[in-house]
């Protein structure tokens, strides 16, 4: 009797052992009315019961989505468009990288214009040295004579050239850089070579590719930021939708809790709703991208043809589609969770 609180005092929670608590649950679970000694049906085993509960929740969620179809479709559309934006940008970037990657694979070339008074032997020496370097794939020497002959053959300046007393052209070494080299490494190599005494002038046919590359890195960063922002937007949109649904179903939630529905039981359909919003939104985004790709296919081919190449637009691909859907589902679930976690526990039957 010692633990009975004084009249009017709020009963204090007494620390109880695990055994006691388990016994309490068993008491409630085994509690039957007098005439009923056994259950008329055997209860489902816990894992099966868990599965059944999730199926029920999923079905309830789908039912609710279907019952407010217009609203659901609008939410899915918003989620889909929000996801389609970064995904489409990503696809565009991939395609651009594929195109410029093709150009890069022709491997950057460095042309070294040497001092004019350099002897043939010295030129050959330098070429031999350069061949030793791992960054260099190929070295080609163009002697002044060869260059002059080429110039005479390709231009119509034979007469003008014939007037010259001596060959004005320098010896040239053309390096093809190893393909796996990063643009920054190429630039470093080129600068190093330009600094050498024998080299009068260096030309790197790489700079614009490098600039493009830098630009793409920038775009990639921006894309990441946009993707993050839009992911947050998806979470908020789904969260807000679910929060409104919770609010509009307040009475139902109270009644369910009144007759013994746990927070989990009430929460589950809402979480499934969020998941479905995310999944359908992700599917919508995928469809938008495919439609966009299909409608751009012909113009892109025409453009490529005008440059004398061919390019077919690639889509998301299987793996990235899976990631898109997974991410979308996750964002939807997260939004629902944020909306529901505290809200539902706070609704108490009155």
């Amino acid at each position, binding site marked *: 009797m010692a633990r*009975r*609180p*004084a*009249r*009017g*005092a*709020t*009963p204090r*929670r*007494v620390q*109880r052992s695990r055994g006691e*608590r388990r016994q*309490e*649950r068993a*008491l*409630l*679970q085994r*509690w*039957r*009315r*007098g*005439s*009923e000694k056994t259950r008329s*049906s055997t*209860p*489902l085993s816990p894992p099966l*019961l868990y599965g*059944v*509960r999730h199926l*029920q929740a999923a079905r309830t969620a789908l039912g609710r989505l279907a019952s407010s179809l217009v609203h659901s479709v609008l939410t899915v559309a918003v989620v889909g468009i929000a996801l389609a934006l970064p995904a489409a940008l990503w696809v565009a970037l991939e395609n651009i990288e594929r195109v410029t990657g093709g150009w890069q694979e022709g491997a950057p070339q460095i042309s070294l214009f040497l001092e004019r008074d350099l002897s043939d032997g010295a030129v050959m020496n330098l070429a031999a040295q350069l061949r030793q370097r791992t960054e260099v794939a190929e070295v080609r020497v163009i002697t002044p004579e060869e260059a002059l002959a080429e110039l005479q053959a390709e231009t119509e300046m034979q007469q003008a050239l014939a007037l010259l007393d001596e060959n004005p052209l320098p010896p040239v070494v053309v390096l093809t850089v190893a393909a796996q080299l990063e643009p920054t490494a190429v630039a470093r190599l080129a600068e190093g070579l330009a600094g050498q005494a024998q080299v009068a002038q260096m030309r790197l046919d790489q700079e614009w590719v490098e600039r493009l590359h830098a630009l793409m890195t920038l775009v990639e960063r921006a894309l990441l930021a946009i993707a993050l922002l839009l992911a947050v937007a998806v979470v908020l949109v789904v969260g807000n939708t679910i929060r409104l649904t919770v609010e509009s179903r307040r*009475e*139902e939630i*109270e*009644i*369910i*809790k*009144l*007759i*013994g*529905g*746990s*927070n989990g*039981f009430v929460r589950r359909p809402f979480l499934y709703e969020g998941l479905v919003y995310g999944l359908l939104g992700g599917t919508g985004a995928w469809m938008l991208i495919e439609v966009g790709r299909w409608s751009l296919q012909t113009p892109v081919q025409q453009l490529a043809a005008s440059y004398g190449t061919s390019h077919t637009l690639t889509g998301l691909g299987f793996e990235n589609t899976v990631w898109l859907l997974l991410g979308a589902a996750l964002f939807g679930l997260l939004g629902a969770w944020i909306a529901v976690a505290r809200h539902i526990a706070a609704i108490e*039957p009155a």
Partner: protein
Amino acid sequence: MIHFERVSKRYRGGRSGLHGLSLLIGEGELVFITGHSGAGKSTLLRLIPRLERLSGGRLMVAGVDIAQLPKRRVPLLRQRIGVTFQDHRLLRDRTVLDNVALPLVISGVPYRERLRRVRAALDKVGLLDKERAYPPTLSGGEQQRVGIARAVVNRPPVLLADEPTGNLDPQLSAEIMQLFASFQEVGTTVLIATHDHRLAATFGRRMVELRHGELAADYPAQEGI
């Protein structure tokens, strides 16, 4: 079964509740809780499935101390207690069938079994032909019976009824009360809160009268009825 030990309940804002009420209700008993409105009848009922927290004293239900019950166990308690409400508390956008099935959905009873038990409960309250109807299309008495079917569908050991005959005519009221009595016959402990002292008295069961949140009288059941 249900043991109130000097239970008190104070509401915020000074609304009266219960003041040191002690009451013992045995298993399988049918007890009418009578008294004027504001006497604490509803409060007494609402404390049992912990729809309200008690402010003092101790309440034991089926050997469980209600005040000490952790929050996550409360749903389990409520699943074992059938309650009907004066305002019915039915889901307006669900059919009668779905409303009555709700407690079974909560405790994860499979569909086929659920349908069988819902029909049995609806049959018991005489509403089998209304299973596809929506609550707002039903009369007050019918809604009350849907509430009763929902309360008993899970075969709870305890059934609580808060003013079940609220605005019903005398004949209908008697029928409803008779229905509750029939649940007692199968071993359910039944508590009925009603302001209708005279109707309760005709049943000759135990009657507990409350006045200003305190026990005013406890009339035992009359033999032979």
